[in-house]
């Protein structure tokens, strides 16, 4: 689209580019600042003026983190949870979404209403907490993190809407060839719905990866905690005993590495994989927003 540009237009363009650069700086600087500090020797760590580039390249924080077991078990627990939760979530939501595309399915209206109601009203934290801990005895169980968040009304409706767009003729042809509904679902509907499955899977995965509150409520043993909960102990609660143990076993004495530098390095180690992955996944993520705007 070519537009005639006059002087005012050019000035606007320049100012606009400058503004965008400022926006990039503002969104990125806090992360960059952590990155700089994670390599900073003590004299730079407590500088009075802002620092824009790393002045030292001190790896001692990262060396300590290698021995900081919590963060690695946290990573492991989070990965297991994310994989299991995402696979089950996508599968089970798709399995209820597909039948809902049939107009004359028995009890269709009843089930749809039942799902919509869960979007409108919830029992709140405590009834769910008591159900899981008191009635189902799932305290300290892996499943307390997975089962409650599998069925998601939003994803069910997003999936159903996509399944509706699969041409009916394809399904009918498969029926004529003698395929049952299970086979149609598994070999026709699911493969044809890869884009939406990817979007829902990514969203589910992000949800599991960022979850921490259920860890706080249901998991008493730190060895079961996911990454976010481990980070919470260190960054939010300032519980640094364990990381100082790692420092001690690396450098001989606890406190050999400054706590501030350690925390920044821990943030870098937890954020970096996301930052590397995210540009590749961006497209699918964005699609989710548009899909989500579609009526349920």
């Amino acid at each position, binding site marked *: 689209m070519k*537009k005639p540009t006059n002087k005012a237009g050019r000035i606007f363009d320049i100012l606009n580019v400058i503004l965008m650069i400022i926006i990039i700086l503002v969104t990125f600087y806090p992360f960059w600042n952590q990155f700089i500090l994670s390599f900073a020797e003590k004299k730079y760590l407590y500088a009075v003026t802002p620092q824009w580039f790393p002045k030292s390249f001190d790896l001692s924080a990262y060396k300590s983190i290698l021995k900081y077991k919590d963060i690695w078990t946290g990573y492991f627990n989070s990965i297991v949870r994310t994989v299991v939760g995402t696979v089950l979530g996508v599968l*089970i939501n798709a399995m209820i979404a597909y039948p809902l595309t*049939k107009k*004359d399915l028995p009890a269709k209206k009843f089930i749809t209403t039942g799902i919509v109601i869960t979007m409108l*009203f919830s029992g709140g934290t405590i009834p769910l907490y008591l*159900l899981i801990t008191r009635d189902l005895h799932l305290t300290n169980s892996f499943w307390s993190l997975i089962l409650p968040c599998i069925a998601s009304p939003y994803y069910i409706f997003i999936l159903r809407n996509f399944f509706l767009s699969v041409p009916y003729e394809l399904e009918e042809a498969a029926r004529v060839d003698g395929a049952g509904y299970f086979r149609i679902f598994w070999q026709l509907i699911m493969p044809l719905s890869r884009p939406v499955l990817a979007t829902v899977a990514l969203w589910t995965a992000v949800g599991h990866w960022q979850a921490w*509150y259920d860890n706080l409520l249901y998991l008493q043993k730190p060895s079961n905690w996911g990454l976010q909960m481990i980070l*919470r102990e260190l960054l939010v609660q300032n519980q640094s005993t364990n990381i100082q143990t790692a420092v001690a076993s690396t450098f001989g004495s606890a406190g050999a590495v400054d706590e501030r530098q350690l925390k*920044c390095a821990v943030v870098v180690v937890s954020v970096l994989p996301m930052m590397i992955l995210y540009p590749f996944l961006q497209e699918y993520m964005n699609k989710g927003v*548009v899909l989500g705007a579609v009526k349920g």
Partner: protein
Amino acid sequence: MRATTAESSVRKAKADPLGKRLKRYWPLLVMMLPAIILIIVFNYIPMSGVLMAFENYKIKKGIFGSSFVGLENFRTLFASKQFWQVIQNTLFISILKLGIGFFPPIVFALLLKEIKTQWFRKLTQTFSYLPYFISWIIMAGIIKEMFSTNGAFNQIVGLFGVKPQVWLSVKSAFVPILVGTDIWKNFGWNSIIYFAALSAIDPVLYEAASLDGANRFKMATQITLPCLIPTITIQLILSMSGVMNAGFDQIFNLSNSAVASVANIIDTYVYTLGIEQIKYSLSTAVGLFKSVIALILMVSTNWIAKKINGEEFTLW
């Protein structure tokens, strides 16, 4: 919206008798079972658990064994100063977030549209979404560090002669920090919906305007903005329904005893009452109060959205 067209393409089955439909569809009904069971167990049983709000719940006796007290718990709540403070804080924080945070995504989308270099536009977009994908736990870590005595914020305002402080413990600074960091984390992501709306505008409109000699500012105000109005109204209306959520993840991880009087919100209050003080009935009552208000807001905003924009923009 897509659903209706697709649905009509599904051949209209004659209303077969139930027996015949059950015979045809039983595999599908079996497929639905896992999700239905999970929804009953983890959504509907807790919903019935709100009965606790009307009981003096004892964990040993359970819901059916505990004594019924009617509205006693609500009377206790409504008489307590803390409850009203918590409601006030929740509304204050969330309305500020809505009011101030609503416009940056729109302005950002409009300005970014004017950037002609595609790679630079993409780059800016990518950076602007980035904070959205970082959990509030890590964000809290970063924010705490930024606003600490030796943090980047103090370094920068120090250039202007402001004395360093632990800003998160300053009562008057806490809510502005909440609002600011919330916008920082979400504005890029929230702008996506506007980008989608912008790309749906017919380019012919701009060509016609440019033939008529309209400049860019005119096009932005006379074409782009009017085309965005439906999206803007619907976003505004729908965001109203979230007014009871002030942002639990953010506040729970940033607040501290020094700012408790401005930082305690409904969701943190539910945690304090229920999990820390083990007052299950009282905590459930707070949760129920919130759920009911949220329900009313949801239904009414959806109704308004339907009135203004027609069927296809609503939630159900």
